């Protein structure tokens, strides 16, 4: 079985598990909406200010909840599930790439669901096409980052706390690029530099996910 066919099989399996458990859509998403509303209430009733900070709040909520999505139990898998994959002679890179891409797809669904809520709450209209590019790129970056962090921390007893601590700073370039690209189109400015930053970060994360999977498995 080829590398990508195995990746596809694991992704399909991970998405099937998510569809059955509805851990992200049924549990995480409602809390994200509540958080977005709470942020809005905390800012006050200044409509112009709310409209202006809408994109930033959207991405902050995406970032905060990405930690929950990435570290959810069905996403990281149990030690026994990881052992099973090893004993099926699955290349460690297959497991990490598939975990990253599955998390990216789930993050994308989460972002898409949260977008209309943000637009409604903050009377914010993103640029016509920028979000079509930005959302998948951020989702991919967060998914790969999550897979990388899970791989690095997998056998540590402090994994849950440490992973969260690593994800937040790791996702700052993604957050900065995402916020600025959406704002740039809103104010009629160019977004190419921000998209290039997203691309570079994703590329770096992708390389790290593939390159570190084997050596960490050998530890």
């Amino acid at each position, binding site marked *: *079985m080829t590398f990508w066919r*195995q990746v596809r*099989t*694991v992704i399909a*399996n991970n998405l*099937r*598990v998510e569809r*059955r*458990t509805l851990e992200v859509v049924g549990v995480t998403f409602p809390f994200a909406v509540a958080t977005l509303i709470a942020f809005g209430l905390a800012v006050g009733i200044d409509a112009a200010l709310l409209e202006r900070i809408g994109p930033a709040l959207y991405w902050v909520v995406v970032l905060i909840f990405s930690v929950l999505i990435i570290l959810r139990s*069905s996403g990281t898998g*149990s*030690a*026994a*599930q*990881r*052992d*099973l*994959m*090893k*004993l*099926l*002679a*699955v290349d460690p890179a297959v497991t990490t790439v598939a975990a990253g891409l599955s998390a990216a797809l789930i993050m994308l669904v989460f972002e898409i669901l949260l977008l209309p809520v943000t637009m409604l709450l903050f009377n914010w209209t993103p640029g016509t096409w920028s979000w079509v590019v930005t959302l998948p790129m951020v989702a991919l970056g967060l998914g790969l980052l999550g897979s990388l962090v899970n791989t690095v921390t997998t056998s540590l007893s402090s994994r849950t706390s440490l992973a969260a601590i690593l994800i937040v700073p790791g996702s700052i370039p993604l957050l900065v690029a995402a916020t600025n690209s959406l704002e740039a189109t809103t104010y009629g400015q160019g977004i190419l530099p921000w998209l290039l930053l997203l691309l570079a970060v994703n590329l770096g994360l992708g390389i790290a996910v593939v390159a570190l999977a084997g050596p960490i498995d*050998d530890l």
Partner: protein
Amino acid sequence: MLQLGNTPVLADVTLAVDMGTAIGLTGANGSGKSSLLRCLATLQRPTVGTLSVLGFDAMTAERRGARRYITLIGHDAGLYPSLTLRENLDLVADMLGRSRDHTLQALEAVGLRGAAARPLEAASKGMVRRLELARVLIQQPRLLLLDEAHAGLDTASSDLVDQVVARVTADGGAAVVVSHEIDRLQSAVDNLYKLEAGILERLV
């Protein structure tokens, strides 16, 4: 020798398992049986010593080559609770590049064909163990490692465990079976060992 942190788990273990034979392993809880199985499965490396599994040096990255031929049935099945019994086995078959026809045949062989659509989380412990035995039939390992092989199983399921072990050895493979049921174990294996405080001793 195997040490986890500062705790010595396996102190003195010398073991050779011939192909086509099964060995039984017994011992008190915490004596290191599961750790020994994990070493044999190449999932854990001894701190000191040598380990060769199916001709692969398990102390180096070469151990990955052996893994395709090893099935470990441990305390945790490593399966997905929200998936059905069939979907769990389909994943195994897919990853091994085997036809999904094997899945139904394996489920039939362990008496689970009728429960194929049942979610794993709704299956009993005995059913989960049968499902793991079905995984053995799909994987056709050269080394079968069974931890607490008969624990919590009814007579029929325990018999099935012994049949699968016999099938693996009859096909030229080797098996290491951990169990507390010494009488049953003796009738199912060629040699019996006892592990006590990390020291392996041959009984029969």
